[in-house]
């Protein structure tokens, strides 16, 4: 079969040959094929077909609730604005690494078209199409830019993503009236919490990682204690600390909102994991780098800031993107402490007397939302890893 020359069989009936080679080459293989055909049959009849017979009105009617929670209707354009922003840079990022749009972009496009065809107000549907347009548009705009400028724009675009989204969605008075965090919900809340946790856990994790590598004994032991403590317990206990203990630990009147408390738990948790990832990254930097910096008479601080961290951070980008998916998945736990995130809101939806029996549909829909998001992000991280992995090989 490893014969580089094609057999006459293969030339004559390529399809038949392929089937034979991949499905029925041996007895065992044939059995496996039959078994998997049976599995597929089960899957189709037992789980896929029933989906079509379900009553999906609960999703149609509550789509706004699932996506944005109680966010005021007249302010929804702000959410769209953030989506436009993200879509623009998403498209650009893919251009940065590839010549043709990757499959994920088409997947996202299909999802967007699906949403655009849902029961929304016309404006929102138009906005969905706008996002689609921006996604692919920016991909082609990016091809007009020089590579270096493009990478700068992308990097700053992504760094500013969180402040931008927070500023726009929360607002600060004037033309953007403040929307309280207790009105945030659904997918919006899940995304914001996980995004914030990634952005904040990077600096905190960096401090922890540096602390762990520090020569100062006290700093080192405190950092090790914190990291191991947090990594040793389930996220939900950390969330409970933020949720039940934090209000007691702060002076009266200082108690932050549930949103902040849940967020601080998630951030703390991810910081510890980020610290370990960064520590790995720091260890990956060759010793010669330090020696070279020292021989240039750079102080240890300067060495760290100007030589080591830029290299580590650049390598960390795919890890960061990937940890966004795990943050997004972990964020689902905030529903256990009563936040109305994507999963938490499902309980509220099925409390509405009109939709008391729709919980399976809601859960299934949320599952597919999670899947589309996490899958596309993890694929994006693979794309980035391939791209960055090639350019950042540091010779030892």
């Amino acid at each position, binding site marked *: 079969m490893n014969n580089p020359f094609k057999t006459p069989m293969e030339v004559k009936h390529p399809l038949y040959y392929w089937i034979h080679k991949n499905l029925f080459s041996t007895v065992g293989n044939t059995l496996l094929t039959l078994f998997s055909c049976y599995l597929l049959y089960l899957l189709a009849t037992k789980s896929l077909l029933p989906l079509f017979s379900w009553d999906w009105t609960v999703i149609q009617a509550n789509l706004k609730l699932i996506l944005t929670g109680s966010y005021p209707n007249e302010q929804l354009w702000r959410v769209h604005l953030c989506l436009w922003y993200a879509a623009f840079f998403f498209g650009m990022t893919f251009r940065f690494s590839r010549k043709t749009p990757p499959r994920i972009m088409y997947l996202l496009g299909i999802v967007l078209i699906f949403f655009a065809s849902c029961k929304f107000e016309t404006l929102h549907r138009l906005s969905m199409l706008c996002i689609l347009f921006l996604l692919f548009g920016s991909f082609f705009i990016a091809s007009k830019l020089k590579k270096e400028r493009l*990478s700068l724009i992308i990097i700053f675009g992504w760094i500013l993503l*969180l*402040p931008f989204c927070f500023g726009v969605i929360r607002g600060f008075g004037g033309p953007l009236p403040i929307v309280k965090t207790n009105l945030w919900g659904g997918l919006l809340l899940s995304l914001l919490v996980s995004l914030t946790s990634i952005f904040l856990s990077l*600096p905190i994790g960096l401090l922890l990682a540096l602390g762990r590598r520090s020569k100062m004994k006290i700093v080192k032991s405190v950092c090790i204690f914190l990291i191991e403590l947090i990594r040793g317990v389930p996220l939900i206990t950390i969330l409970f600390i933020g949720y039940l203990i934090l209000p007691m630990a702060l002076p*009266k009147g200082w108690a932050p909102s549930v949103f*902040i408390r849940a967020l601080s738990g998630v951030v703390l948790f991810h910081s510890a994991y980020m610290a370990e990832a960064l520590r790995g990254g720091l260890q990956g930097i060759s010793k010669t780098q330090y020696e070279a910096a020292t021989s240039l008479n750079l102080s240890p601080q300067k060495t760290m800031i100007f030589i080591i961290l830029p290299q580590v951070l650049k390598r960390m980008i795919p890890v960061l993107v990937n940890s966004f998916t795990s943050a997004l998945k972990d964020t689902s736990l905030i529903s256990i402490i009563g936040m109305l995130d994507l999963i938490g809101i499902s309980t509220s939806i099925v409390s*509405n007397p009109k939709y008391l029996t729709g919980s399976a549909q809601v859960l299934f829909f949320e599952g597919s939302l999670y899947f589309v998001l996490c899958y596309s992000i993890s694929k994006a991280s693979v794309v980035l890893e391939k791209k960055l992995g090639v350019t950042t090989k540091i010779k030892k």
Partner: protein
Amino acid sequence: MKKRVTLAFVLISVLVLCLSCGGKQESPEPTTTSVAAPAVAAAPAPVVKEKTSTLQQVKDRGYIVVGVNASNPGFAYLQEDGSYTGFEIDLAKALSVAVFGTPDKLEFRPLTSKERFIALQSGEIDVLIRTATINSSRDTELGLDFTTPYFYDGQTFVVRDNIGINTMEDLEGASIAVLTGSTTETNLAAIMASKQIEYRPLTFENLDEMKSAFINDRVDAVSVDKSSAVVFLAQFEDAGDFKGLEETISKEPLGIAVRHGDSAWKDICQWTLFALFYGDEHAITSANVDEVLSTTTSPETKNVLGKGKEIGAMMGLSNDWAYQIIKQVGNYGEIFDRNLGIPMKVTRGYNKPWNQGGLFYANPFN
């Protein structure tokens, strides 16, 4: 090129570091718990407690923060557009009308049963209207004050109709589901132990989960409050298959909870309820309140509706507060029918004014 990329990354790292310090003005807390960020974690100085009344705080703020349930059918739940509705939400609206004259000066905080009292103690919410059962330990130990009950409830069982269960004793050996973190859980355990009935408990975090378990015959009975039982039954078109037992195993008076020691604020909550009860007692509804106001001869009704004694002013409210409540939200009966009576077919039971055989007794407005 390499230089520029490096420069970019230096800038990022600096920016990212700054982000942790000043990126988010409204949330200095996430870093406070992390001792590894000493630069950020300013030591919280103990704040000198100023005793401003809750009413003053609420008025300064411009809205009332109410702790509610986000998923209790009939009592409080989210609508499709993300707004809250339900029986308890209407009580909160009445409170808002009393203080501000309009029913929309409210901010709802969805709370779990674990968190509800802590949220009140820590000052996160002004008032808790979340099916909180009044009992002595909560009233005395938890630093709370309760108003008069706004709903008289009692715990019972929902079972399948066709398997011949009529009393609790028939439940010997059955699987019974109960919500965790509530008084129902302890009540059930206590009553079953005292009657020496063997059963298999199954505890759930939320109602939806428990509902699924019951519909799918995972459990033989669920132990819930009567109001929930009725709501439970109303949820299914084939509700004939299920029934609630007659027995009531506990008293569950639900009250509005406020922080201990602020009697002025408690008075407002209390008398808002009494105003609702009074309207129910004397058949003053949102439809006929204007007519009653112009024709009434009863001095007490005049007091309530703001034509007699200045009761409102004494509480720090406008004088026609009760009139506005009934005008804008309706009396107790209207609220009940709108949220529970008509859509859920909950019967009034004890939740009627005393002159119609119920337990609600509005203290005199004099």
